[in-house]
């Protein structure tokens, strides 16, 4: 059950997208997110959807895997859709009591749902094609200019690296403790909400204890290797932009410009 979460997972295929500089991928993902919020009409979404699907194709990641990442969000997408179709005022096309579906609502709701799906697809494509380490390296480099105004770029990146690094560890740990408690007759799946919440105690207490213990050990191990923040630290792998990065940024830049001009013209 825990293994269904694909957001934040890395899926190695060695494709063109995987080889791009993480900075390129972060910037272009932000551009796509911006574009999804700027353009909200049929033409823009067709262009953006097409672009996202081309990217998925280029990444060589099976479509099934991407769809699996949307699955956990299906309830949120459904709720968004339903609220929009019922709550938007406009031309009523179907009604029952005080519940009215409007043409505008249907339109709005569909766009919201599609927007959410595209957002998840776009961002999961970023994490699926980029290793967590590369991703945080990219973020650190992108935040570097803001260091002058007091943004602790390196520390933030290090925190993210550690957090990402421990996601699989903690998932594994959760799985193990869960199994151990199930073997002792614990039940995590049935009963009402209160009982289920109570049932989580045997899982959460050991999990927190182990998380704190790990944090403590890691801090100790880092200090033992003289870690003292980002000053004067050099890197083994230097990030470098190549021509394919510039081309990719150019293409996405043009895409964003197109979406903006469609918005202005209509």
């Amino acid at each position, binding site marked *: 059950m825990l*293994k269904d979460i694909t957001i934040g997972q890395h*899926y*190695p295929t060695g494709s063109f997208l995987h080889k791009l500089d993480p900075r390129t991928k972060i910037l272009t993902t932000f551009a796509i997110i911006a574009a999804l919020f700027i353009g909200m009409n049929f033409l823009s979404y067709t262009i953006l959807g097409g672009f996202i699907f081309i990217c998925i194709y280029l990444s060589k990641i099976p479509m099934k*895997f991407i769809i699996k990442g949307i699955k956990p969000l299906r309830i949120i997408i459904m709720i968004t859709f339903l609220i929009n179709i019922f709550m938007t005022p406009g031309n009523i096309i179907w009604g029952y009591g005080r519940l009215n579906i409007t043409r505008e609502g249907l339109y709005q709701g569909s766009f919201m749902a599609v927007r959410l799906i595209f957002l998840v697809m776009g961002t999961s494509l970023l994490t699926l094609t980029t290793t967590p380490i590369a991703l945080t390296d990219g973020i650190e480099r992108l935040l570097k200019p803001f260091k002058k105004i007091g943004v602790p770029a390196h520390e933030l990146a290090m925190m993210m690296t550690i957090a990402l690094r421990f996601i699989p560890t903690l998932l594994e740990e959760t799985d*193990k*403790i869960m*199994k*151990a*408690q*199930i*073997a*002792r*007759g*614990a*039940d995590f799946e049935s009963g009402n909400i209160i009982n289920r919440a109570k049932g989580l*105690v*045997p899982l959460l*207490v*050991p999990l927190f*204890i*182990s998380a704190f213990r790990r944090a403590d050990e890691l801090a100790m191990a880092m200090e033992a290797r003289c870690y003292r923040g980002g000053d004067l630290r050099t890197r083994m792998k230097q990030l470098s932009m190549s021509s394919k990065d510039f081309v990719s940024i150019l293409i996405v830049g043009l895409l964003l410009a197109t979406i903006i001009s469609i918005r202005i013209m209509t």
Partner: protein
Amino acid sequence: MSIKIENLTYIYNPKSPFESKALDHVSIEIKQGEFIGLIGHTGSGKSTLTQHLNGLLKPTSGKIYINNLDITDKNVKMPEIRKKVGLVFQYPEHQLFEETVYKDIAFGPINLGLSESEVENRVKEAMGLVKLPYEELKDRSPFELSGGQRRRVAIAGVLAMKPEVLILDEPTAGLDPKSRDEILQQIKHLHEQMGSTVILVSHSMEDIAKLVGRIIVMHKGSVAITGTARETFRQVEKLESIGLGIPQISYVMKKLKEIDPSFNDDIFTVEEAKDEIMKWIRRRKNA
């Protein structure tokens, strides 16, 4: 409580790039009251196998019968199986969560739906089995105990459910020699007294040689060797080729045999070795 495993196959993450076959057509039969040693390299499928035995994992294909009851069947009630098969995980002290030792050990019995007085009896009994003083420790927090004591509390938590089959996954990993010997002694005692079937997963050939009646060696998801300790440890080459070995004392005896061929090198415990060396000394004196 007999266990019969037929053609058990288990695949982790099927149909993804991380797919891996953890068990490959494993067939094993374990009789009531046997003491089994399960050995194998990391990733050989030992843990996956033990988790199948109490229904934590569902086989990709194959059948598992416990006392002729097919536990891979969908209609089988899992609590029934868990009552019968107790599983002590690696580093079991990591699952402790209650405020007091008593409450933690009582967790399993309470989940079985037993009465309060029965739960109390079981906790007392389980603590007795692992040699923890009941009155002294029952109201202490498990987190202020020593490592060895914590491990025993965790084992008691499983014993209190009175399983007929007890599976222990490396119960002595990370313990000091004294705690290790104590825990192994208690496991042995448990097997002898209660007559329960015990499966001990271990990396230590010495512990295995000392305790178990039969050994199952796993390699790459399949059973590589099965037989008594003597039969298994005779296959030195095969064991070494899969990254395992035989007890260190057996290597010592093999060296001695090289020096004097009259030595018997078919020896797997320190006690046996002692007898053999004493015999050899006597022979020398008489000669």
